[in-house]
């Protein structure tokens, strides 16, 4: 069985962001959404010395640099909204899965924006994954500790 390269990167994303989902809730138990966002940004900057790509950064086109920067802004706005959702009573086990539905935007936009299409098997996988996220965001009627 040939596992695609991207799959291994995806596993790293799953584990790290899975823990992030929990830390978001824990941080907003102690801080406002706005301060949680600021310290989250500081956390990003702790990694910056290891990420600095060197002088090659000046060789990238303004367009690509703009996409990367715009990505940061959009992600920050999303993170702000997510932290605000958790601060305003959203449970980690509901809000985290619900906000993970953002690929729906990508699945519908990618054929137009990126001119990409997916295979029949991948479509089945996408449907299963989205169904999983929807089911994971269903609320428990009893929130008492187990």
């Amino acid at each position, binding site marked *: 069985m040939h596992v*695609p390269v991207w799959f291994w*990167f*995806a596993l790293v*994303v*799953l584990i*790290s962001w*899975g*823990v*992030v*989902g929990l830390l978001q*809730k*824990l*941080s907003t138990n*102690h*801080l406002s959404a*706005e*301060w949680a*966002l600021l310290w*989250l*940004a500081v*956390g*990003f900057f702790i990694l910056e010395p290891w*990420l600095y*790509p060197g002088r*090659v*950064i000046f060789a990238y086109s303004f367009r*690509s*640099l703009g*996409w*990367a*920067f*715009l*990505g940061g802004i959009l*992600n*920050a*706005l*999303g993170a702000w909204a997510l932290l*605000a959702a958790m601060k305003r009573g*959203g449970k*980690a*086990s509901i*809000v*985290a*899965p619900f*906000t*993970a539905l*953002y*690929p729906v*935007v*990508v*699945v519908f936009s990618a054929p137009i*924006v*990126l001119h*990409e299409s997916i295979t029949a098997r991948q479509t089945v996988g996408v449907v299963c994954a*989205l169904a*999983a*996220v929807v*089911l*994971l965001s269903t609320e*428990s009627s009893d929130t008492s500790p187990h």
Partner: protein
Amino acid sequence: MIPEALKAKWFWYSVCCVLCWGGWALVSKLGTNEISAAGMQFIFAFGFIPVAFVALALKRLEFERSLKGIAYSLGNGILAGIGGLALFAAYRSGGNTSVITVATALYPVITVMLAFLILRERLTWLQIVGLGFAVLAMVIFAL
């Protein structure tokens, strides 16, 4: 259940998050066509500065001293950064953007399990079925 959710503020904040992150995933793919994964994460972090300061300025919030909250948020940033780096690397590997985005968005599986174990939030049987679907999706993507 749905009308109740529609009345809740957290629901609408979550919808905003979905739209912003959908846009983020698309522009990230466009950026990774040229920029390395490390370079993307490096530049991406700068996008947080204006938003964080606007958020604080709008709220006129005073400094909050909770060391626990700060530690959780810093850990949040570091782990989110590592995940972002891996996502950009996945985009650069040439895989399909929709498939990679969907697969990596299955991270709530880990969150829900941790919320169950650490926060003691209860799992519904629907959530357990959801975990099954998530595993099935990952197996299909891995084939």
